[in-house]
């Protein structure tokens, strides 16, 4: 019987069996940011410990940075304090910091891949649940808490339990105007927001084979929204082409050896899985969330479901969602008026996301509706430069989108980009939890970047395929 990539990576990184029955696992790459690391460094200091493998930890700053100006000191004194702590900690422990003043800053899950740090067959962790993103490269990547960040700093290892593996195949071809984000929302809708608890997801099938790295990252990113701590795609030529030539990727003689090694980590063709589910790509439509968790979604042409039709567990949450979102069951999602449009985040804030939206809006004299505030927020500073080099900034500005500095921005409420009151936001991010976008009563509708752009222009939720003439 063959092995899955998950099993191979797990075995390769096993250090020891712990008395608790857990496995001590070596972490190939540790990423840190300003929110979940300061307390971990304090704990390390209290224990009188040093960072064991400083060359395997990398830092950036993303959640708190304003996307208007990154000039220091930051206007928000709490944010400035967090920045100062991070700078102090990385300096003291000799950790490489992708900092704003060097133009290397960005969302941690954008920067890792972009720098070539994220590689197949690795174990990757970060005090951030969307670390699952890095699984797109065939890595086992997952979020950890701050006490675990302390453990990784002190030992480069974690106490882990082995997960089960569910293979999710999406076969056939996606229809035009259906994107990776729609696949992610569809899978979560089908398997539920806690369907993945205890599992790693292996994404496979023709759709994933044909996906670019950016698209694979979008789906792996949202594994955690389906309850799965990590999700991965087996590495292939697409993965290697992406990595080749990146700053931290192997080069010269090492390249061929690395590729051979990466190839050997793929799931064997006779690997056994704890569960297998299969979907037909042709069944997937552009998706929009209507509720207060990412599983409460529907195809853009559909009507908001009735609680009575749902399983008992979901009913209460749906009833609360109707109230919070001011929706009625049976109401179409199409035509829902929006106030804010946000394109960005570690889910959909990559170059190809922006390039696709720019392609759709360019030259059609389309403008953001007068009552809508629309933000375009690049995932990293270097990507922002690329966007400018490609002229995307101008296309967005001409259409009435604000082109901002890199960061997490309106994905969550830790920087000045926030919803006000009960505003409704069409968002390319990953969470529609109550209050997620900065107003305790703000409302989030998750969708693909193309659908966000369409909503921005029409001023309400609308089928991007119709608006942009995608056939």
């Amino acid at each position, binding site marked *: 019987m063959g092995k899955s990539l998950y099993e191979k990576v797990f075995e390769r990184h096993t250090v020891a069996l712990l008395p608790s029955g857990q496995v001590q696992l070596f972490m190939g790459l540790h990423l840190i940011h300003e929110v979940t690391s300061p307390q971990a460094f304090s704990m390390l200091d209290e224990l009188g410990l040093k960072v064991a493998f400083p060359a*395997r930890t990398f830092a950036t700053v993303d959640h708190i940075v304003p996307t208007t100006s990154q000039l220091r000191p930051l206007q928000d004194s709490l944010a400035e304090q967090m920045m100062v702590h991070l700078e102090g900690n990385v300096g003291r422990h000799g950790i490489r910091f992708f900092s704003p003043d060097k133009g290397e800053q960005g969302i941690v899950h954008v920067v890792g891949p972009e720098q070539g740090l994220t590689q197949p067959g690795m174990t990757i962790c970060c005090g951030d649940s969307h670390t699952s993103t890095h699984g797109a490269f065939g890595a086992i990547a997952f979020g950890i*808490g701050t006490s675990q960040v302390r453990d990784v700093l002190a030992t480069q290892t974690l106490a882990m339990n082995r997960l089960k593996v569910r293979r999710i195949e999406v076969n056939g071809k996606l229809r035009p105007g259906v994107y990776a984000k729609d696949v992610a929302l569809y899978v979560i809708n089908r398997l539920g927001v806690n369907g993945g608890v205890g599992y790693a997801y292996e994404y496979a099938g023709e759709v994933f084979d044909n996906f670019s790295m950016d698209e694979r990252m979008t789906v792996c990113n949202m594994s955690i929204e389906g309850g799965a701590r990590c999700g991965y795609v087996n590495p292939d030529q697409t993965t290697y082409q992406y990595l080749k030539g990146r700053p931290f990727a192997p080069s010269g003689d090492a390249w061929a050896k690395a590729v051979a090694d990466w190839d050997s980590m793929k799931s064997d063709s006779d690997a056994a899985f704890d569960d297998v589910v299969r979907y037909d790509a042709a069944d997937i439509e552009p998706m929009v969330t209507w509720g207060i968790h990412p599983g409460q979604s529907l195809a853009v042409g559909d009507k908001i479901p009735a609680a009575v039709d749902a399983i008992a567990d979901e009913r209460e949450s749906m009833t609360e969602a109707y109230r919070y979102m001011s929706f009625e069951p049976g109401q179409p999602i199409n035509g829902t008026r929006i106030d804010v449009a946000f394109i960005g985040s570690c889910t959909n804030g990559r170059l190809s996301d922006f390039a696709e939206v720019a392609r759709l809006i360019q030259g059609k004299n389309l403008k953001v509706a007068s009552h809508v505030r629309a933000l375009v927020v690049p995932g990293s500073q270097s990507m922002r430069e690329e966007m400018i080099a490609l002229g995307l900034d101008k296309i967005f500005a001409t259409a009435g989108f604000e082109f901002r500095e890199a960061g997490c921005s309106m994905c969550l409420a830790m920087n000045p980009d926030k919803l006000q009151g009960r505003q409704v936001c069409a968002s390319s991010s990953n969470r529609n939890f109550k209050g997620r976008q900065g107003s305790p009563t703000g409302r989030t509708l998750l969708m693909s970047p193309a659908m966000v752009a369409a909503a921005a222009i029409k001023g309400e939720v609308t089928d991007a395929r119709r608006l942009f003439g995608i056939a």
Partner: protein
Amino acid sequence: MQDSRRETLFGPGVPLRGNDIDTDRIIPARFLRTVTFDGLGDHAFEDDRLQLKEQGKVHPFDDPRFADGTILFVNKNFGCGSSREHAPQAIKRWGKCITAIVGESFAEIFFGNCVSLGVPCVTVDAVSADAIQSAIEADPNVAVKLDLRGKAVHVGVNRYPVEMGEGPRQQLVEGRWDTTGELLANMPKIRETANRLKYVSGYK
């Protein structure tokens, strides 16, 4: 030194109903703009509390009847969402300090974070969860005892079996939930593993 063994924990209980209560609700992101965990307890469920107040209702964390509560009773998929340890830290630091959570199911990262902090998260079936919450709502002073060794929660005269993974349960019962020491003890093996990994040595 404080005893780190978590064998028997006593209430009173706090019933907090609802499935899929996410970490953004447990501690809204704006309170994450800090470099310590101090003071987070005051902000636990802040937005939920406020919104209920506006609707003329009372969140259990604002309800004086539950102010002395130390064991929290929740429902399904509690703690889903982000990995922020600020969430269990806030719960642990609220009021008289929550020392254990009993629910139908927990999100994985949240569960692990709680274990790291010495806070057991144990599960009960849906019928028991509802029965216990109702019992505490009816009588906030009802005696509540979590017996982690005997795998049961006692509420008044009733006993409900609880479940928890054997590994973490043993860690908590024996007071070995603070993992750093155990991990550090294997430093020679850690270095061996690192040396064996081709990417660590740069594919030489």
